[in-house]
């Protein structure tokens, strides 16, 4: 694998909460423009892994490198690095006291130091991208879950991240709202965004993912193309899990 095209590289990532070891040595790398799906049973450490990728969770051991910069290096400007790693959460986590537009402009102004008018212009473009330009002045509480999640994606993408991390972006949504969020993610991938998606949306995985990673019990058990993982998994645990979720 060519080092220069790897946007995200994790080596020997371990994470313990007290006695409980949740990540048991993860090696993971992500090429520019790739969309990788991460699947695995609940509690297998998928969220923890994503959160270690931007140091929302402090790894106990190991390294994470984003576009050649080691996040664990002493003196690294973690805020400037995090700006380059977009994150989308299961619970959306929009700021309820700010309008949709201000949800997007806050970091543009405070982190990227954009002027108010530049930031608003970017917010407008982003809202157009997710199909919510008419909601700029609405408050998150006035939006459906699907709309909130699209705003959350817009908020992250506005910062021009090098990689986007999605932690079960559609799990909290009513089924009829899932499609609109997946539509936005598809659009992002087509625009060349590098993405890691924790999700069990199998149809979307087959269609959009270049690679599937199966995690269980804090380890990456197996990875491969959607066909390999879904049709012809080589590990028993993968097979059982795939059978379970495609019921």
């Amino acid at each position, binding site marked *: 694998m060519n080092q220069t095209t790897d946007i995200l590289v994790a080596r020997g990532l371990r994470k313990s909460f007290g006695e409980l070891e949740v990540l048991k040595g993860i090696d993971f790398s992500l090429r520019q423009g790739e969309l990788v799906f991460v699947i695995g049973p609940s509690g297998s450490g998928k969220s923890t892994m994503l*959160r270690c990728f931007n140091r929302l969770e402090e790894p106990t051991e190991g390294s994470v490198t984003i576009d050649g910069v080691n996040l664990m290096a002493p003196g690294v400007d973690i*805020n400037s*690095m995090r700006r380059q790693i977009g994150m989308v959460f299961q619970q959306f986590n*929009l700021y309820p*006291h700010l309008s949709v537009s201000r949800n997007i402009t*806050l970091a543009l102004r405070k*982190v990227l130091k954009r002027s108010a008018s530049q930031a608003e212009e970017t917010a407008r473009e982003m809202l157009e991208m997710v199909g919510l330009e008419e909601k700029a002045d609405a408050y*998150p509480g006035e939006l459906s879950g699907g709309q909130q999640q699209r705003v959350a994606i817009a908020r992250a993408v506005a910062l021009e991240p090098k990689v986007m991390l999605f932690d079960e972006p559609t799990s909290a949504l009513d089924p009829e709202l899932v499609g609109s969020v997946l539509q936005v993610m598809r659009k992002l991938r087509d625009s060349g965004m590098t993405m890691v998606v924790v999700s069990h949306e199998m149809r979307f995985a087959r269609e959009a993912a270049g690679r599937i990673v199966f995690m269980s019990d804090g380890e990456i058990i197996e990875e491969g193309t959607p066909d390999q993982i879904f049709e012809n998994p080589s590990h028993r645990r993968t097979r059982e899990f795939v059978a379970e979720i495609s019921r």
Partner: protein
Amino acid sequence: MNRWDLFIETFFRPDLIEKYWPDIAGGVVVTVQVAVLVVLTGIALGLLLAMIRSYSLRGVNLVLVVFVDVMRSLPPLVLILLFYFGLPSVGILLPSFAVLWLVLSLVLAAFAEEIFWAGILSIRKGQWEAARSTGLSFSQTLTFVIVPQAVRMTVAPLTNRTIAITKNTALGTVIGVSEILNQATTAQSFSGSATPLMMGGIAYIVLFIPIVIAGRWIETRFAWRRA
């Protein structure tokens, strides 16, 4: 004299009302001045302390919690007397007005700190994570994301506590601050009538009823949709 006349004679003597209302009005002005100053400095200091507490600096937080608990457990009157009669002995001479302002501000700050702190703790962890994931620093997240939400949640308890503490401006009378109660008791001792006290009571009602009503209004206004 029947009972009704006796009642009027005791509490509403027209000549005394006419004579003393300028004094009571002067007391109202002083009470309002102290109250406004106490609310401004007390709440601002309380918020500042709660924000400082968010940084989880061990030594700082220990001092902070001790201060808050001491201020909350001592009766304000004790503090007022301590400051007024104690500080001059260590070379700090404060006018009685300043002592009243200082003590009530510190007491309000202590209660406000606890209320704001509870508000800050009640904001879901996801808000911190979302903000930090966009590159906002701890301080920026606290200032622009957490505190504005926390403040909205604390409006009701804070309003109640603020009203309770501003009423303590009446304690200024024991150190000679010429606020409402002081004016009323002075007039009472000169006139030998309870009428000035009744006037003082009415002045408090006129002053605080609008604040209580405003408090209710603020409460409903800030009970806003949660996402």
